[in-house]
């Protein structure tokens, strides 16, 4: 039972991170390799607001979430806007450059020291018993709840709201969408904003669970195979991929060798790329055989 809880929590982490990859890719066909860094930036945003509004955790979290969204918009406006229509490698490289910049920026502003936003917010990460002789931590519950809420919210948003439908249309055919009067830049900016928001949420929760430090970036990269296994342009796929990778990881750690944990996501990914390169639920486009 504990293993099941572990799988769910880890899957929630991966899913919350990877939906950012999916959102951006689905709408603008750009792979953001700065996602880990933006996630870290979001978490530092929480650290900042937590020290500004100490004792007011709700306000601090809300402000930092809004901040993460704004950062996403700003990234698009300042950088990615110019990458529209560029080659794949150029756009990917732009996000990498952004990531490098953010890493240096974070150290310049907050130093490399480990921080504990949980303490500033006054959150005690206790744990609760779960039927079947297992336990789940408070942040674990939060993670599950937030991930569920985010995916549900995105589903409703993409399916029923005007902006959501515009986003899907843009993802399907940007040229046609533009000709139908959809403002592409607005839609793309929104995608970046939402992706940074969800990534920032993941960063905040992880930093509350453990601590806020530079390795957050690497965790962001670890979630990437989950998005790819599920299919880079499918939110349901990201959920499924996260579940598969988390299951493989937790079971291998427990029954085989903990050292495998690092390589597992990429092994699963390689296997996937050989069989179904577009992912489990991804769209099979542009991948025609020559």
């Amino acid at each position, binding site marked *: 039972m504990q293993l099941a809880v572990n799988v769910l929590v*880890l899957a929630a982490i991966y899913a919350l991170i990877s939906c950012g990859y999916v959102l951006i890719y689905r709408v603008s066909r750009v792979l953001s390799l700065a996602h880990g860094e933006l996630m870290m930036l979001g978490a530092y945003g929480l650290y900042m607001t937590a020290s500004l509004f100490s004792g007011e955790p709700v306000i601090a979290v809300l402000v930092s979430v809004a901040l993460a969204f704004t950062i996403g918009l700003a990234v698009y406006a300042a950088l990615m806007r110019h990458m529209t229509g560029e080659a794949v490698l150029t756009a990917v490289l732009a996000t990498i450059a952004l990531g490098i910049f953010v890493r240096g920026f974070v150290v310049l502003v907050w130093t490399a020291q480990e921080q504990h936003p949980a303490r500033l917010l006054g959150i005690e990460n206790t744990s609760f018993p779960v039927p079947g002789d297992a336990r789940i931590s408070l942040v674990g519950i939060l993670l599950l709840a937030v991930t569920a809420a985010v995916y549900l919210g995105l589903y409703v948003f993409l399916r029923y709201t005007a902006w959501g439908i515009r986003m899907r249309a843009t993802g399907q055919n940007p040229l046609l969408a533009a000709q139908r009067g959809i403002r592409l830049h607005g839609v793309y900016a929104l995608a970046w904003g939402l992706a940074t928001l969800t990534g920032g949420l993941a960063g905040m929760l992880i930093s509350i669970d453990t601590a806020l430090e*530079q390795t957050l970036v690497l965790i962001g990269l670890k979630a990437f195979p989950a998005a790819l296994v599920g299919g880079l342009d499918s939110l349901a796929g990201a959920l499924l991929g996260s579940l598969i990778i988390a299951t493989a990881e937790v079971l291998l750690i427990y029954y085989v060798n903990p*050292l495998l944990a690092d390589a597992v996501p990429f092994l699963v990914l390689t296997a996937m790329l050989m069989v179904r390169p577009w992912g489990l639920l991804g769209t099979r486009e542009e991948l025609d055989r020559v």
Partner: protein
Amino acid sequence: MKRLFAAAMLAGAFAGTALGEDAYVIGVTAGMTGPASGNFVPVIEPLRAYVEHLNTRGGIHGKPVRLIVLDDSAEPSKAAANVKRLINQDKVILLINSSLSSTYAPSVAEAKRAKVPLYYVGAVCPKETFPPADPLQFCSTAFGVTYDSQAAIGFIKSHAQGPVKLGLAAMAIPVARMGIDFAEKVASAQGFKVVDKEITPPPTPDYTPFATRLKDADPNWVFSWSPWVSQVRTFEALRRLGWGGRYLTWAHLNAEEELARIKDDGFYVIGSNAFFQDDLPIHAEIRAVAHRGNVNYPTTYLTEGFIGGLVLEQILKNTPWPPSPAKVLAAMNRVQVDLKGLRGGPLAWTKDNHFRTTQYYRVWHWDEKQGRIVRVEDWIPIQVK
């Protein structure tokens, strides 16, 4: 390709410093960026502050000390380039390495070629510094993994009631794996039952899957020797899974701060640097130096770097002007530094022992009844042979 030449001239423009300088020039390569920087920046910052303070007091033999700090991001190739530059261009008389052990091989290779002594501050002491020591390598870092494991197992033996079922945990980096393997041997020799040895890869978003396996092996003591993240996350995950045993781990730079954060009776740390709660006169001095040098880290992190400063000052005092690498080396081989209570005894190097002759350990934990950190074991000496 013509630009190569232009660029080389550009490089020439910013290379022309530091020849025939009227100062003791010390070169540092340190992991100031990257995921491991949290371990090394709080060592280098107080070291730098110490040297600044030293210079305002008039330097050594009336000459200033110049500390050139270069970042290697804990990457071997950058460290190699740094060391090359420090030796060839800046003509340093002593090299300091404060970075991950992967940077050692290139640093040592360059240092050997130029016969410049290499001093590890706040970084893992390589086995070449233990007796019989390599002539060029020295180390003042608090931990020496095999001795630490020995002391830790000894502590568990003297404090355990009843038979010990020991769990071991380490991060998948060479030095931690070596230490934990050694601990396993010592523990088995002591008659402990080693129920599980958990090696976790760095970094990982959630330690619960690893902790689950450890908890299911049902140990009543767990010993972990690793970077702090891995040690404390494993412990927190174990507690959240409802594990009730006792956990002993290494006191890294941030231990004093972290004990007060975690506030758990069963969380013990073993270390060789005194805590600031002792409030010795030297602690006030560290505070003052850090304040003057604008060090960003909490004062409790700074002991290690400050010890580096004390040792450096003593070495240079024993080095007559004008200095040379050979003179520094001679001074290092017979140095004895009074650490003023920061450790259990003075730091002494001899010709074939470049670690220290005696290593002293203390053990602390958080006492819930008293609501403060309490010392449970005072300066256990272990001879280094």
